[in-house]
């Protein structure tokens, strides 16, 4: 459980360095916590880190788009700090380490893992945004 708190703190802190202000800062922190909670749940079920990252990113995307509509802010205010805990920092580091140790085979493995994680985040956010955009378009056409 304290891991989720840490995800909250991490996103909160990075949100502050990106100059998010006031109560939106709390919501930016919650975004990171939500993503990490989903990641942990799925990781304990599936054991696949890339898949869990993917679903975690979808969760961050959904959360950010919803929060954006309630708080009348751009969704990036919540999604940018929110995805940070999911970023595959460890595998990226292990890749660098493998390169410095001249262990190219291992470096390739880690590189694929890193790119997989980054791609999973990208595609997760993309899905959430596309979904919400579809809904708000429908609303607009109904009003018109």
């Amino acid at each position, binding site marked *: 459980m304290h891991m989720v708190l840490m995800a909250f*703190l991490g996103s909160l802190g990075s949100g502050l360095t990106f100059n998010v202000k006031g109560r939106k800062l709390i919501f930016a922190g919650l975004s990171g916590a939500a993503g990490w909670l989903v990641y942990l749940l799925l990781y304990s079920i599936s054991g696949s880190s890339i898949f869990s990252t993917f679903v975690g990113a979808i969760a961050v995307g959904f959360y950010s788009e919803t929060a954006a509509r309630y708080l009348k802010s751009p969704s990036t205010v919540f999604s940018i700090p929110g995805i940070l805990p999911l970023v595959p920092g460890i595998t990226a580091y292990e890749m660098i380490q493998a390169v410095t140790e001249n262990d190219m085979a291992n470096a390739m493995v880690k590189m694929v893992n890193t790119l997989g994680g980054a791609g999973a985040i990208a595609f997760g956010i993309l899905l959430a945004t596309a979904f919400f955009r579809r809904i708000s378009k429908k609303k607009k056409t109904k009003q018109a």
Partner: protein
Amino acid sequence: MQPNELMNIALKAGEIMLTSGAEIYRVEETIVRICKSYNTYCESFVLPTGIFISIRDSEDSMHTAFKRIHDRKVDLNRIDRVNNLSRSLQVSQPDYEAVLGSLNDIETVRQHAFPARLMAASVSSFAFTILFQGTWLDGAAAAVIGAVAYLVNEMMARRNLYQFLELFIAGMLAGFISLAAVRLFPVLNVYKIIIGSLMIYLPGVSITNGIKDALYGDLVASLTRLGEALLLVTVLAVGVGIALSVGIGRW
């Protein structure tokens, strides 16, 4: 409002948003929204490095202006405020001086004070280290190293060094200090400290925006942003890599 005044405002609003790290579609939409609020037809074309606007005046002649964008610094608060300003213009249309005044306010609004940001960088370094299953001690070390890296980064940013150089040095510095820390306290875990203290430098903004730009069809911007992200990560990685290979070789 005169066409050139409107153009001035739209360009300024777009410039603030783009330099603060907004997505392309948001900048374009904001510009068009501002013009529409004043019943003027307008087209905008935005690239990560420049803004183009065309406005048609009441006599049907077109006016075009463009603005070159050089440096970018992420500031989500500014994007938020310009966004809200442009939406408020749809409801009521204040005159030129009033809008320009509010834009100037947004542009000069202060960031969080430096000590607060330093603290935040330190706290998030700590949090990310724990998140990656580091021990509390690792977290404490990362908090210190993250703060030092942020301090140096801020000093370089104030001297207007290139962003790539800043990241390179931040990565190398964090690498060297972490290695030294582990040398002094062997219970620490080098790689957890390094990752934790460098997380906030990862180009989350470029990646997120690059993807959203692709989704909205701004392909040029998307590829540019993703390329930027790749470069930034590479530079950071090379910095850390140099520290590791020199450090591990010597000790």
